[in-house]
C-alpha cells in the first residue's frame, strides 16, 4: 500500500476492475487473477476480446496464463529486475510520454547534491546507518526544500508504513527547483535513468530467466499500448506484496506507469487486487496497528505523546490535500469521544493509545512466543494455517492464557492445542470459540479491491448463538465501559469518555449498522445532521467523522449510497460508493492535457468545460471542480489552493506523481533489486548487497533460514499460491463439500525435468523442505511449470497452494509452515512468495512435522 501511497498519494487501487475492459494492454504480474479473482477477470477477458494484449508474468502457467496472449515465466523474486528493465527500455528508446511526464510527475524536480545512488554505493543509498540497519532519509529530499520546524520526520521504530506519511511530512516539499527539459544531471529523470541503466535485457535473462527476445516482446507490446491514444494497465496481488522488497516492486510498476502516462486515465492504472472481500476496507478502517481510520497515523509513544498541536504540526503538510489533516483528526476524535472531547483537553488526543514498537501480526506473535502476551482475539483469520511459519505460530499460542476465536467453524487456530507437539494438559491457554455469523447473516458493507463500498442486507438470521462481529464488539465494549465506570482510574479515562450509544435492534440486540455507517460518514456535533462529504469537516470540534475518506457515503438520512443499486454511465455511478467522493478512477485530472482538453477522443474521461467553467466527464473529477487548468497559486496559498490547475496528484504537497519518493519509504527513494532472503543465485546487479538491507529477518530458533545464496540443501525456488477452489487458509472452503471435492488434496506442481531428476512419477508423494519445516504433498508433474535457464544455470521452481490444514472434509499439511517470519521494512510483511527448498521422494507414510532440515 505505501507503494501506491507514496507514488500517487493514496493507498488504493488507482482504477476499477470494470475499467480494465478499456485497456489496450494488461500486464498481470504477482497475481493469478483468473484463479483468485475470477469474477473481476471477466473484464480482462473482455479487453482481450476487444483486441488488448494480455500478458501474464508468473513462475507458473496458471488459469490466468491460459487466457493470456503471452505467458512469461520468470524466477520468483526477480520482479524488480524485470520491471526495472522495462523502465530502462522506455528511457533508452525515448518511449516516455513526455507531455504527461513533465507536468504531472516529479521527473523534472532537482535533487540534492549530496544524494548518493545505489550506483555510487554498491547497492545502498546515502543515509544508511549500518548500526541501526536503517536509513536516515534527509539526502533524499528535493533540493531547496526547507526543513520543517520541530522534530525531523523519519523512521521511528514504532511507525509502520501504512499511514499517509509514514512518520511525518519530511520537509516543505512544496518548495523545489525544476528543469522541464529533463536534462539537469540531478533531476529525477536523469537520476532514474542512471539508476536503472544496468537493468538490461541481458540482466533479465541472467536473473529472471526470461529470454531477451521474450522480454523485448513484452516491453515493446506494453509501451506500444501507451500514449495519448492508448493506455495499459497493471494488475498485481500478494504475489508482489509478500516479498522482502514487496513495496518496492509496486513502486517499480508505479514509476513505469507514470513514465508511460497511464495513471488517471481510462484503461490505465494499477489495480491492487486485494486478498478477499474487504481487505481494502480493513486498511481504510484499519485492523492495522500503525494507523487510525482514513490513513491517519497512530501516534507513537514518547515523541508523539506531547500534544495534539505537535502531532498536527508533524503530520500536516502546508500544501496539498493533507493540509486538512487536523480537520480529519479532530473529527475522528469527536466521533470517538463526542462531548467529552473539547478544545481544552485537545479533543481527547491523550486518550489515544500509542504504539511502542512492532505491534504487527508478526511482531505480536514473536512477543507471544516469548510469553509477553496474555490474551488474543482472533476474528476472521486462521493464523494456524494462514500465517508465515505457521508451526511456530501454533506453538506460540500455547503461551497465551486465553484465546478468543470467533468463527463459523472450529478452525485450526481454535484447535491449535490439538495440532502441536505439546500434550494438552501442559497447555494453559483457555480457548473461547464463539460462533460467528456469516456474511449473509448480517448487514454491513464490503469495501472491495477498487475502493467500492457495497452494502449487503441480511438474508437470514444467524443460527443458534452465532452473532455478528459488530454485536460482539459492541457488547464487549458496553460491558467494559460499565466496568470502567465503576473504576474511575486514569487509565480508564479514555474508555469512560468513549461515545458508545449505538442503537440496537431485534431480539439479539444487534447494533444498527446503518447508524455506524452514518457515524463513519460524519455529522455535525450540535444537531447530528449528516455531513455531505469531507469538505464539510472542521478542525474546531463542530463535526464528527469516523473515517474521512468514506465521508459522503451517507450524505443525508435515507440515502445510504453504499446501497445504491442503479448503475448508470460507463463507470457504474449509482452502484455502491467508491471512496473518495465516488471517484472511480483516481487522479483523473491526468486524463486531460494540461490545458484541460482530453489527450485523445478515444481516451477521454474528465475534461474542462470552458463554457460552464468546471471539470466534467464520465467520472467524478478527482480535482477541485472549479479550479481552472491555468490556475496558478499565490505564494502564501495553503492546501489545495497551493496546487496549480495542472497538479493531478492532489494528496502530494507538490501535486505531482512521485517517480522519486523523497519521504516515506524505509528502504530507498527508488526501487532497487535485492534478492529474496533465500535465493539460489547471487545478486548480479549489486554483488555487495545480496538482500534488502532494511528487511528484518527475525532469525531465531524455530525461525531459521537457509543460506542467503545457493544453499546446497535447498537448491530449488519455492513459491506459494491460491487455487480458485479454496479460500485462503481454508476455513471457509475445506468444510464445504462442494468446494472441498474440487481440490481435495495438497499437491505440489513440479516440472517433468525435476521429476526425472528426483525419480518421482506424477501422483507420487513428495516431501518439500525448507530450513523451517517439511510438508508432504502429491506430485503434480506438469509442463505448466518450467525450469529456468539463468544464463546457463538451470533453476527449478516449485509451487504449492497453501489452503490445507488438519481440519475439515479435506486435509493436508500446512504449507505456511515452510515460510519464514520475516519483515519487509515498510509494512512488515513476510516473504512467502520466494524462498528456497528441497524436494524429495516420500517414503509414503506419515507427514513430518516442524523442526527443520
Amino acid at each position, binding site marked *: 500500500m505505501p507503494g501506491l501511497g507514496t507514488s500517487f498519494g493514496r493507498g488504493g487501487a488507482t482504477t476499477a476492475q470494470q475499467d480494465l475492459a478499456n485497456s489496450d494492454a494488461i500486464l498481470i504480474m504477482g497475481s493469478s487473477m483468473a484463479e483468485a479473482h475470477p469474477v473481476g477477470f471477466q473484464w480482462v477477458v473482455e479487453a482481450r476480446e476487444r483486441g488488448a494484449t494480455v500478458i501474464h508474468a508468473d513462475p507458473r502457467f496458471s488459469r490466468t496464463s491460459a487466457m493470456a496472449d503471452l505467458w512469461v515465466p520468470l524466477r520468483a523474486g526477480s520482479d524488480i529486475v524485470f520491471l526495472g528493465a522495462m523502465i530502462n527500455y522506455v528511457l533508452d528508446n525515448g518511449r516516455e510520454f513526455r507531455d504527461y511526464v513533465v507536468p504531472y510527475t516529479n521527473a523534472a524536480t532537482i535533487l540534492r547534491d549530496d544524494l548518493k545512488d545505489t550506483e555510487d554505493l554498491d547497492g545502498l543509498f546515502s543515509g544508511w546507518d549500518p548500526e541501526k540497519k536503517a536509513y536516515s532519509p534527509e539526502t533524499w529530499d528535493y533540493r531547496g526544500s526547507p526543513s520543517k520546524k520541530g522534530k525531523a520526520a523519519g523512521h521511528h521504530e514504532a511507525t509502520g508504513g501504512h499511514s499517509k506519511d509514514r512518520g511525518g511530512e519530511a520537509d516543505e516539499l512544496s518548495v523545489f527547483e525544476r528543469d522541464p527539459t529533463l536534462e539537469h544531471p540531478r533531476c529525477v529523470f536523469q537520476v532514474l535513468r542512471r539508476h536503472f541503466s544496468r537493468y538490461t535485457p541481458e540482466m533479465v535473462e541472467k536473473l529472471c530467466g526470461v529470454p531477451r527476445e521474450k522480454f523485448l516482446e513484452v516491453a515493446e507490446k506494453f509501451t506500444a499500448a501507451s500514449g495519448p491514444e492508448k493506455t495499459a494497465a497493471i494488475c498485481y496481488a500478494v504475489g508482489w506484496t509478500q516479498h522482502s522488497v514487496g513495496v518496492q516492486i509496486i513502486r517499480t510498476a508505479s514509476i513505469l506507469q507514470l513514465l508511460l502516462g497511464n495513471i488517471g486515465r481510462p484503461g490505465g492504472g494499477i489495480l491492487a487486487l486485494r486478498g478477499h472481500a474487504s481487505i481494502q476496507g480493513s486498511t481504510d478502517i484499519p485492523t492495522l496497528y500503525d494507523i487510525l481510520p482514513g490513513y491517519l497515523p497512530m501516534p507513537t509513544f514518547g515523541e508523539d505523546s506531547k500534544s495534539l498541536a505537535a502531532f498536527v504540526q508533524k503530520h500536516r503538510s502546508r500544501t496539498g490535500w493533507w493540509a486538512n489533516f487536523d480537520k480529519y483528526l479532530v473529527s475522528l476524535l469527536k466521533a470517538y469521544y463526542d462531548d467529552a472531547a473539547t478544545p481544552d483537553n485537545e479533543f481527547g488526543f491523550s486518550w489515544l493509545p500509542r504504539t511502542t514498537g512492532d505491534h504487527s501480526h508478526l511482531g505480536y506473535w514473536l512477543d507471544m512466543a516469548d510469553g509477553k502476551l496474555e490474551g488474543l482475539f482472533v476474528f476472521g483469520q486462521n493464523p494456524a494455517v494462514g500465517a508465515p511459519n505457521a508451526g511456530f505460530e501454533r506453538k506460540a499460542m500455547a503461551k497465551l492464557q486465553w484465546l478468543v476465536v470467533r468463527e463459523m467453524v472450529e478452525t485450526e487456530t481454535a484447535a491449535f492445542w490439538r495440532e502441536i507437539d505439546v500434550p494438552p494438559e501442559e497447555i494453559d491457554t483457555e480457548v473461547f470459540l464463539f460462533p460467528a455469523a456469516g456474511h449473509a447473516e448480517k448487514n454491513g458493507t464490503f469495501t472491495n479491491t477498487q475502493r467500492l463500498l457495497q452494502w449487503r442486507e441480511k438474508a437470514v438470521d444467524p443460527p443458534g448463538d452465532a452473532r455478528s462481529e459488530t454485536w460482539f464488539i459492541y457488547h464487549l465494549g458496553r460491558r467494559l465501559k460499565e466496568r470502567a465506570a465503576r473504576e474511575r482510574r486514569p487509565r480508564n479515562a479514555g474508555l469512560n469518555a468513549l461515545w458508545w450509544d449505538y442503537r440496537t435492534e431485534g431480539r439479539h440486540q444487534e447494533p444498527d449498522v446503518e447508524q455506524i455507517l452514518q457515524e463513519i460518514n460524519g455529522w455535525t456535533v450540535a444537531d447530528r445532521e449528516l455531513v455531505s462529504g469531507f469538505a464539510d469537516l472542521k478542525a474546531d470540534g463542530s463535526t464528527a467523522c469516523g473515517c474521512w475518506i468514506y465521508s459522503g457515503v451517507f450524505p443525508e438520512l435515507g440515502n445510504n449510497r453504499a446501497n445504491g443499486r442503479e448503475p448508470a454511465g460507463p463507470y457504474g455511478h449509482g452502484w455502491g460508493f467508491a471512496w473518495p467522493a465516488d471517484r472511480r478512477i483516481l487522479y483523473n485530472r491526468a486524463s486531460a492535457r494540461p490545458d484541460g482538453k482530453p489527450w485523445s477522443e478515444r481516451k477521454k474521461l474528465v475534461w474542462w468545460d470552458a463554457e460552464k467553467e468546471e471539470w466534467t466527464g464520465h467520472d467524478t473529477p478527482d480535482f477541485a471542480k472549479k479550479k481552472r487548468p491555468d490556475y496558478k497559486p499565490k505564494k502564501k496559498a495553503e492546501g489545495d489552493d497551493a496546487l496549480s490547475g495542472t497538479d493531478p496528484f492532489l494528496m502530494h504537497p507538490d501535486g505531482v506523481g512521485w517517480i522519486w519518493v523523497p519521504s516515506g519509504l524505509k528502504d530507498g527513494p527508488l526501487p532497487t533489486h535485492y534478492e529474496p532472503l533465500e535465493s539460489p543465485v547471487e545478486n548480479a546487479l549489486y554483488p555487495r548487497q545480496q538482500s534488502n538491507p532494511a528487511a528484518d529477518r527475525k532469525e531465531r530458533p524455530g525461525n531459521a533460514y537457509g543460506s542467503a545464496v545457493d544453499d546446497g540443501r535447498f537448491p530449488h525456488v519455492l513459491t506459494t499460491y491460491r487455487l480458485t477452489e479454496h479460500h485462503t487458509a481454508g476455513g471457509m472452503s475445506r468444510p464445504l*463439500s462442494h468446494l472441498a471435492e474440487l481440490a481435495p488434496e495438497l499437491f505440489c506442481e513440479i516440472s517433468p525435468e525435476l521429476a526425472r531428476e528426483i525419480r518421482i512419477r506424477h501422483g507420487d508423494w513428495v516431501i518439500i523442505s525448507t530450513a523451517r519445516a517439511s510438508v508432504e504433498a502429491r506430485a503434480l508433474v506438469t509442463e505448466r511449470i518450467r525450469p529456468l535457464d539463468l544464463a546457463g544455470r538451470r533453476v527449478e521452481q516449485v509451487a504449492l497452494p497453501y489452503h490445507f490444514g488438519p481440519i475439515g472434509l479435506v486435509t493436508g499439511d500446512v504449507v505456511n509452515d515452510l515460510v519464514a517470519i520475516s519483515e519487509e521494512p515498510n509494512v512488515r510483511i513476510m516473504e512467502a512468495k520466494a524462498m528456497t527448498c528441497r524436494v524429495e521422494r516420500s517414503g509414503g507414510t506419515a507427514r513430518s512435522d516442524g523442526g527443520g532440515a
Partner: protein
Amino acid sequence: MSVTGFFTDSTLCIGCKACEVACKEWNQIPDDGFLWSGLSYDNTIELSASTWRHVQFLERSLPVAGARRRESAAWEFHSDVCKHCENAGCLEACPTGSIVRTEFGGVYIQPDVCNGCGYCVVSCPFGVPDRNPSDGRVFKCTFCYDRQRGGLEPACAKACPTGSIAFGPLETLHDRALRRLEELGEQGIRDASIYDASEGSVGGIHAFSLVRGDPRAYNLPPAPEIPTVHLKTAWRSAAAGALFLLAACAAAFAGTRR
C-alpha cells in the same frame, strides 16, 4: 414457451468451476467423494449422478520459449453438461415415462417416476445419465427446469463470470455461435468449431459448444447416434433370422417324414 439452450464457448472459459458449484448448490447435489485424481485440476472427472456440470481441463504440451500469440492452446477448459438432444436416446429408451421433454425443449428425468432400470444410461451417446449408487435412480442436468419455470436462467449460466456459458432462446444462440466463430477467425484462430451434433440421428443438441481442436479431446463423439436409429435394421435382421429358423425347422420336419 420458447425452446431454450446453452451455448458453451470454451475460448471464454477460465476453468473457475463456478458453474459446477452453482449447479450443486442450487440442486442440492451431494459431493463425488474427496479423491485427488491427478488429472490436471479436474477432480470430479466426469458428468455423473452427482455432477451435472463438469469442467474439463486439457493440458497440452507448452511451447517453452518464444511462444506465439494465444498461448491458451496450452490449457483448455470446457464446461460440459447434458446436451438435451433434439432426439434424445435416453427419452426414447425410458420404459416408465419418467423422462419427458419440457416446454423449454429440455430433457427432464422425473425422479419420482424413475424406477432405476438404467436403460437410458446405455442409450445416451454422450454418457450423461448416471445411476445414483445409493438408490439406483438416474440423475442428470434438469436444465434447471424449476428456475426456468420461475423465469430465471439456469444456475450455471447465472454464475459464469466470463460469459462462457450463454443461455437463451436456442435460435439466437446459434446465430451468436456463428458470429463468435467469425470473430475468432478474425483473431487468427482457425482451429475452432461448433459442436452441435446436427448431423446424424441426434438431430442437434440444445446444449452445444464451441471448442478448439478435435472435439474428441473433450469427450465429444464425432458422430453420435441414438440407439433407436438401428431399430429398423435390428427388427429386419431379427425378422429375417426368425424366418430363416422357421424355414429350417419346416425343412427339418419335412425331412423326417420321409
